[in-house]
């Protein structure tokens, strides 16, 4: 009865009102706008760096099908089935299984049907379930952790039961001491069920302005228009995850996952635990969960065998992270995956550290390029016709490089094991003596080939093992202590890395002592010309920067034409192929042992890039190179802000000082620009003049109080203006601190202002530059200070703060934009009005007035379809035509006038025509 009354009243209002205003919205194909997208977050460099510490709510799921496709193809061959049909079917089921399992786990985590598995077990301030903590603490990342499997299996048995979520929560206590609130995202069993948190999954056809946040920072009007157009044509760029017709590429598939309606604070606390849980549960469940029998039918048994962690990658869609960034080798190595996404990977691959014969390690990139760019299409998304082509390129580069690394590892392990098993270091030594006996007996020998060979042997070992000059020796020693390789290659090696390294060490010692004892000047006399090409490729790359090609292989071939190899596979007898030779002679064996150790070292450096050492999928922060830079404190996102505030503080202090001690501090003319010194030192050395009216000690105390520990920081002297007369004085213009961006600056390595390291460019972990600014008296306003006094400094303080805060990169800034709201504005006005840019950049709606915005908010939230027209009648009602219903929806409005001619608006009840009841969500 009440509804009828409202409808009649509204109708009456329309008929009688003279104030009818209708606005037609741009019509769109409903299929094109069916994708509901989360907010896009645009971040500048500093914000992006900060964001890396927060958990993301949107990610890309990257699936490669090569392994499963090969397996199903072979299965079809074996069974005599049609290979094309079965392979295509297998790929579809595989993709479906991956997405379904992720969605199932997400649903269970969100509904309290699976407890969270905390990402960081070292935190004392959080509740960490005891058994879980024990299991994780005892799991080493280079060994399989069966305890973790058993633990998850117990939880999964409970979650698979057909009981209520609250019943499961109770049963989980039998497994571990979970906390009813801390261990779940949803804090209570009966939280608002209307809040939809189901995982949104979109298949990515093509990267578009819908990922504009990966291409740029502050979205301007034209960027917003591009987003609107893309959102209104989203069918071109996105598809449903189960739409296999759209997934044309059989090798790879990229999906965009989004978790909607999260409570911000709760997500900040639990987001990383969510992702950690998802990863751990997924790895286990994909192989073992009984649900897989149904999800992956008929291939469940086949899929059980897949190395799923090699086929699935989840990367954050933006600057936020899935894994808490850490400054350790594992994390850094995973971030190195970014390189494989580059369009020009093949051209630049040889310059990459990962492919270097003696890599510096994943930390090198941070130190050599601390201020890399971000959000400028770092991963060359724009360089490819579609998302599949980008992912295919990424996958090809990654798997190709991994295959190279694997080959390197297998070859190195095999060479070391074989050599160790068949020749003792003592016998190698004897064989070497015999091989070079003609040179040892007669240094005037004319056997140039042998002289060269001995030179290569000694030089290569010197490079790697010289006590004083080898930078490599210390690095290789680290290899002895690492168990990474043991974890990777336990099944194919008879010896542990330690044993293999010890074998190498003894050989190295013998070779080095042999080389040291040589009559070097006699053997390699003036008549000897070294044939540099005979060095091993790794040596030529490292020492001669690949300026010429190695002929080491050719030299071995020539040797084997007249000699039998020292060690070869038996098949060599039939094939005579060089690849069947383990090593040709004693010097070749020694050099190959060294090369194998170097290869093991290089594989160990990047092992986490290529192999999953833990039972979980990789989740590198592909789009945020500042994740590791922030974790390793190479880049401090707050630094510029702090330094600006420091400048403000310094200027304010100066203002205070100028009252107490006007023009008190002057530098003497012997200050040299670029000279590194400290203010304290300047005072101590008597290079700072001060007004004789003041006691020096008091001034120093006062300065120390104001400038704090920074006074002790050595700073570069910077002199503005030139003192023409040797008698001119310089005035101290304050201390300024900035992030260093050039190696030519005198960089400082400071952890805190009072904690200084030696200035060492290679090992710094943080980097700031500090200047003591002196202005020559003639060019400064110092002499006016008695007149302008504190106000000058205060003005300068404010001005510098203003200017500093405009820094586009180094002051953290972010903007949120909602593609649905942007497209709504575009449809309403036919463009993005200038006046809407600001609101849209804050993630807000922007329509004509608050009433339209409220109507849009309520109806698009609660009804399906798009708004096509809003007709206002007077101030208390509106008819809204939705694309999903022929009849308009009648809406009751309540307007309140507020100050400044603005009115607030509230949407009251609305009525949908009976025949359109189906458009109501959550009926």
């Amino acid at each position, binding site marked *: 009865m009440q509804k009828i009354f409202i409808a009649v009243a509204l109708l009456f209002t329309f008929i009688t009102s003279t104030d009818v205003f209708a606005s037609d919205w741009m019509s769109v194909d409903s299929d094109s706008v069916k994708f509901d997208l989360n907010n896009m977050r645009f971040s500048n460099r500093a914000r992006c760096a900060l964001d890396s510490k927060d958990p993301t709510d949107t990610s890309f799921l990257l699936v490669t099908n090569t*392994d*499963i496709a*090969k*397996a*199903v*193809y*072979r*299965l079809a*061959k*074996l*069974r005599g089935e049609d290979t094309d049909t079965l392979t295509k079917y297998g790929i579809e089921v595989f993709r479906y299984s991956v997405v379904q399992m992720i969605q199932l786990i997400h649903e269970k985590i969100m509904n309290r049907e699976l407890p969270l598995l905390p990402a960081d077990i070292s935190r004392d301030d959080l509740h960490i379930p005891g058994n879980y903590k024990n299991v994780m603490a005892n799991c080493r990342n280079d060994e*399989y952790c*069966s305890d973790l*499997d058993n633990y998850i299996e117990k939880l999964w048995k409970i979650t698979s039961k057909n009981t209520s979520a609250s019943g499961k929560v109770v049963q989980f206590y039998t497994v571990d001491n979970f906390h009813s609130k801390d261990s779940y995202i949803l804090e209570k069993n009966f939280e608002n069920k209307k809040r939809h948190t189901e995982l949104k999954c979109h298949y990515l056809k093509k990267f578009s302005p819908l990922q504009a946040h990966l291409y740029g920072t502050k979205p301007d009007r034209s960027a917003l228009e591009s987003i609107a157009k893309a959102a209104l044509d989203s069918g071109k760029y996105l598809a449903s995850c189960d739409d296999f017709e759209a997934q044309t590429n059989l090798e790879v598939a990229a999906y965009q996952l989004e978790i909607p309606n999260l409570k911000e604070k709760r997500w900040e606390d639990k987001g990383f635990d969510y992702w950690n849980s998802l990863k751990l549960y997924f790895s286990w469940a994909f*192989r073992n969960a009984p649900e897989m029998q149904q999800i992956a039918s*008929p*291939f469940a*048994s*086949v899929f*059980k*065998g*897949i*190395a799923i962690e*090699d*086929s699935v990658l989840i990367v954050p869609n933006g600057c936020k992270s899935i894994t808490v960034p850490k400054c350790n080798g594992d994390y850094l190595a995973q971030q190195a995956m970014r390189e494989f996404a580059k369009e020009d990977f093949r051209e630049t691959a040889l310059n990459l550290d990962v492919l270097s014969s003696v890599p510096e390690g994943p930390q090198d990139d941070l130190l050599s390029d601390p201020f890399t760019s971000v959000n400028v299409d770092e991963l060359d998304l724009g360089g490819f016709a579609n998302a599949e082509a980008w992912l295919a390129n990424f996958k090809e580069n990654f*798997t190709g490089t*991994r*295959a190279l690394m*694997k080959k390197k*590892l*297998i070859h190195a392990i*095999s060479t070391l*094991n*074989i050599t160790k*098993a*068949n*020749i*003792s270091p003592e*016998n190698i030594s*004897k*064989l070497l003596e*015999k091989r070079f006996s003609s040179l040892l007996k007669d240094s005037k020998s004319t056997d140039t080939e042998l002289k060269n060979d001995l030179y290569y042997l000694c030089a290569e070992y010197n490079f790697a093992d010289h006590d004083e000059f080898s930078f490599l020796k210390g690095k290789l020693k680290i290899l002895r202590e690492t168990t990474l390789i043991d974890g*990777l*290659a336990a*099944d*194919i090696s*008879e010896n542990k890395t330690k044993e293999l390294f010890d074998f190498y060490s003894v050989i190295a010692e013998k070779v080095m002592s042999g080389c040291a004892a040589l009559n070097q000047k006699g053997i390699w006399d003036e008549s000897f010309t070294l044939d540099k090409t005979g060095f091993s490729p790794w040596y030529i790359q490292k020492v001669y920067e690949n300026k010429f090609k190695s002929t080491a292989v050719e030299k071995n071939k020539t040797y084997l034409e007249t000699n*039998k*190899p*020292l*060690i*070869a*596979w*038996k*098949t*060599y*007898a039939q094939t005579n192929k060089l690849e069947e030779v*383990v090593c040709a002679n004693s010097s070749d064996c020694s050099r190959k042992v060294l090369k194998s150790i170097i290869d093991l070292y290089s594989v160990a450096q990047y092992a986490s890039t290529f*192999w999953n050492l833990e039972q979980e999928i990789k989740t590198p922060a592909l789009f945020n190179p500042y994740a590791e830079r922030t974790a390793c404190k190479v880049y401090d996102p707050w630094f510029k802000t702090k330094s600006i505030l420091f400048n403000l503080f310094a200027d304010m202090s100066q203002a205070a000082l100028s009252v107490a001690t006007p023009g008190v501090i002057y530098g003497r003319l012997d200050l040299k620009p670029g000279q590194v010194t400290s203010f304290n030192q300047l005072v101590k050395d008597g290079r700072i003049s001060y007004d004789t009216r003041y006691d020096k000690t008091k001034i120093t105390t006062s300065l120390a109080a104001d400038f704090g520990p920074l006074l002790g920081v050595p700073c570069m002297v910077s002199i503005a203006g030139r003192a023409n007369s040797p008698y001119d004085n310089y005035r101290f213009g304050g201390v300024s601190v900035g992030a260093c961006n050039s190696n030519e600056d005198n960089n400082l390595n400071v952890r805190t202002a009072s904690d200084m390291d030696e200035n060492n460019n290679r090992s710094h972990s943080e980097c700031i530059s500090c200047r003591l600014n002196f202005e020559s008296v003639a060019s400064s306003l110092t002499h006016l200070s008695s007149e302008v006094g504190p106000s000058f400094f205060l003005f300068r303080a404010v001005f510098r703060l203003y200017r500093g805060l405009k820094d586009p990169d180094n002051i953290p800034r972010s903007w949120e934009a909602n593609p649905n709201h942007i497209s709504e504005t575009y449809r309403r006005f036919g463009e993005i009005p200038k006046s809407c840019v600001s609101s849209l950049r804050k993630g807000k709606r922007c329509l004509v007035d608050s009433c339209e915005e409220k109507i849009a908010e309520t109806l698009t939230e609660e009804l399906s379809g798009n708004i096509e027209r809003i007709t206002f009648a007077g101030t208390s009602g509106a008819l809204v035509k939705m694309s999903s219903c022929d009849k308009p929806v009648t809406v009751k409005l309540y307007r309140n006038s507020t100050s400044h001619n603005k009115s607030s608006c509230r949407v009251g009840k609305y009525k949908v025509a009976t025949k359109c009841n189906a458009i109501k969500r959550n009926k």
Partner: protein
Amino acid sequence: MRNILKLGLAFIFSFNITAATVESTWNDQYRKELSLYCAEDDILCQDVCNDTLVCKIPEETCHNCIGTSITLTYIFNYMGKAYLNTGVEALNGDVVELLKSGEFVTFSSRSIYNHVDNFNSMTLRSNFRKLCSDGTRYPVVMFNRSQENQSVSDVRFVFCDAGVYEMEFSNDLLINYDQSLEESLY
């Protein structure tokens, strides 16, 4: 004493499993199974399945066997080089025990686990065929499956037409020491 006993047992049982034909297959439900076809004088089928002629043993898919792991790559690349037939006939009891436990993984040149070469490629066929001197077309190599992580573990047997043999993880090498040093080397 133990070795003598082992040899004695080998003598007693080895002839029993000589004529069984073994195939590593995937059934209509796409589940892996090991099929044994026994001749009348074989007791292998009888021992494992209580059937005199045919025995189908389900084989669990080993974890991480579909992919390009270091171990799998090594197995297919180095079969016949680092995984060798010792020539020692396997004890029937050992074979039966492993088959009954289900903790095994089998490989052949037609394995779907092979991702390092084409299906049943010439090279792979030749590597596997080297393991049997009797011309077996598709020798089946059996490994242990780790109880801990369900992945492939140590190599155990090879099924040739003429019998089942012990396998070893070793290297089939030629070593050519210089004559003058030969005596001083081990």
